[in-house]
């Protein structure tokens, strides 16, 4: 019965909440509108938007030495997660089962390596958030819940990697469904908002002819 619930109705609910939540969140952001800039533009907003998006992938040289730890750990986690999520064989097969669309997965050893890198990166970031007095002060419950949920999803996935026990696969899937329901209402939405956010700042300053 648990299998039918987790593979059936819970998955449907989680998927609807996830997709509808993201669309609703993005619509809410884009329909807020922006104040019209009456000044004569001195540069291109579009170029500013694109350049800022690219430049924010590496830290500004003035602050780089101070945030090296967060940048390195952050990239370890995000790059590892990207490979894991989209190119791990069980995930590729899962997407192919539900959508019919598939692609070539990475070899299992790369999958394992990506997992280790992503897990280490996330653990380091979570420890930094807990141990640094600055981030401890500015962190809210949502910051911890999001990190811990992602960690649980990854850990449960590791436990089920052998693909020998249905119970472990169901536990992993249940964790994923919880994360999908939580996702649109949390700071994890940065996954979809970081591009428009950087783009807005870049466009605004780009119109004013300022390089940021």
């Amino acid at each position: 019965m648990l299998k039918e619930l987790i593979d059936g109705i819970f998955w449907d609910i989680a998927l609807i909440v996830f997709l509808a939540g993201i669309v609703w969140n993005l619509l809410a952001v884009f329909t807020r509108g922006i104040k019209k800039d009456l000044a004569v533009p001195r540069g291109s907003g579009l170029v500013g938007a694109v350049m800022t998006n690219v430049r924010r992938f590496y830290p500004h040289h003035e602050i780089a030495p101070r945030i090296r730890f967060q940048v390195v750990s952050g990239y370890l986690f995000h790059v590892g997660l990207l490979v894991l999520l989209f190119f791990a064989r069980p995930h590729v097969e899962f997407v192919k089962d539900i959508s019919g669309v598939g692609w070539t997965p990475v070899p299992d050893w790369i999958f394992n390596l990506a997992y280790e890198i992503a897990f280490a990166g996330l653990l380091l970031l979570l420890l930094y958030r807990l141990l640094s007095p600055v981030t401890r002060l500015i962190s809210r419950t949502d910051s911890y819940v999001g990190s811990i949920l992602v960690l649980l999803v990854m850990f449960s996935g590791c436990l089920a990697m052998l693909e020998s026990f249905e119970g472990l696969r169901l536990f992993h899937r249940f964790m994923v469904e919880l994360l999908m329901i939580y996702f649109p209402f949390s700071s994890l939405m940065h996954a979809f908002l970081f591009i428009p956010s950087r783009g807005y700042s870049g466009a605004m300053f780009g119109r004013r002819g300022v390089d940021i």
Partner: protein
Amino acid sequence: MKHTTAAVIQDTGEARQRRKRYMLWSFLLLIAMTLVLPLIPYAVAYVQDGSAVRNPGSELWREVRQRDQAVIGQTQADNVDAGILINKRGEEWRLFRMKKLIPFGAILIGGILGLIILFYLIRGTLRLPGGRSGKRILRFTLNERIVHWFTVVIFWILALSGLITLYGRYVLVPLLGPEGFSVTASASLMAHNTLGPIFLVAILALFFTFVKNNFFARGDLKWLTKAGGLLGGHASAGRFNAGEKIWFWLAVILGLALCVSGLILDFPNWGQGRVVFEWSHVVHGISAVVMIAVSFGHIYLGTVGMEGSLESMTTGYVDATWAEAHHDRWYEEVRNAGEIEEPGQSDLSGGVASGGVAQSRSTD
């Protein structure tokens, strides 16, 4: 013609019976010869030598079992140890695991845990003499604390999953049943094998972060003879006392032994044979059990055993009274450098590279 039909019928019947008797006796003779003929060489040898003769097949199986020396045969399979039919050492390894590692490991871990609980019940928490002063000293920077807790998390995931693999059949099967335990064991094995390589990174980071203050120095032997103050009054110490230094080197050496043996076991594609796996498992098992047992002492002293210890690894700061009581030589260095924070100084300077106090000890 004298032969009547009745006579012919009678003759035919008798002949048939005779033929049947011949066939039966021939068959029985054949069986008897099959059983008796192979024994003739033994009988001859017995008569000739006057003693029992071993089964000639025993020579073959002795060579196969490698009682006298390892004999490598030839097979079509082209991998390490493919030519060894039976690995006699495998039984020795199995007996070591079942009769030595498992019971003695349980005694060591359980014994040390029991002693610690007994010590706590008798002695209680070691309080700060005279209470807290309110003045703070930065003991561990943010980087040091992150490296420590990262190692702790990875170590305990591996320790628990390893203990489930070693003792699960005795402890968990009665609780979860065989099916429940098989799921738990599979999950533990995956967690252990996948996260194991990360422990190497953690141990190396721990080594390079803490090594510079962990070389044995003047005063460490005296600290040991006083058992850290348990015998014979105050024991002087620098930033790290002799007990902490011993734990550091044990953790690094045992940790590296665990990592090297673990990698050999986790990646069987470097041409390792059975003997290498067996020795790796022995090293891995002994190192793990010793490290887990000794870590209980470290955990006890860092938490309930000593007032004011845990906050050094959570906030980075210790009370000045704590520093003076347990690490007096380090306290003197810090006091002379003017690095004692008075009550009310900003919390945000703690252990972060931007803080002036932390910068001198920051590993950024």
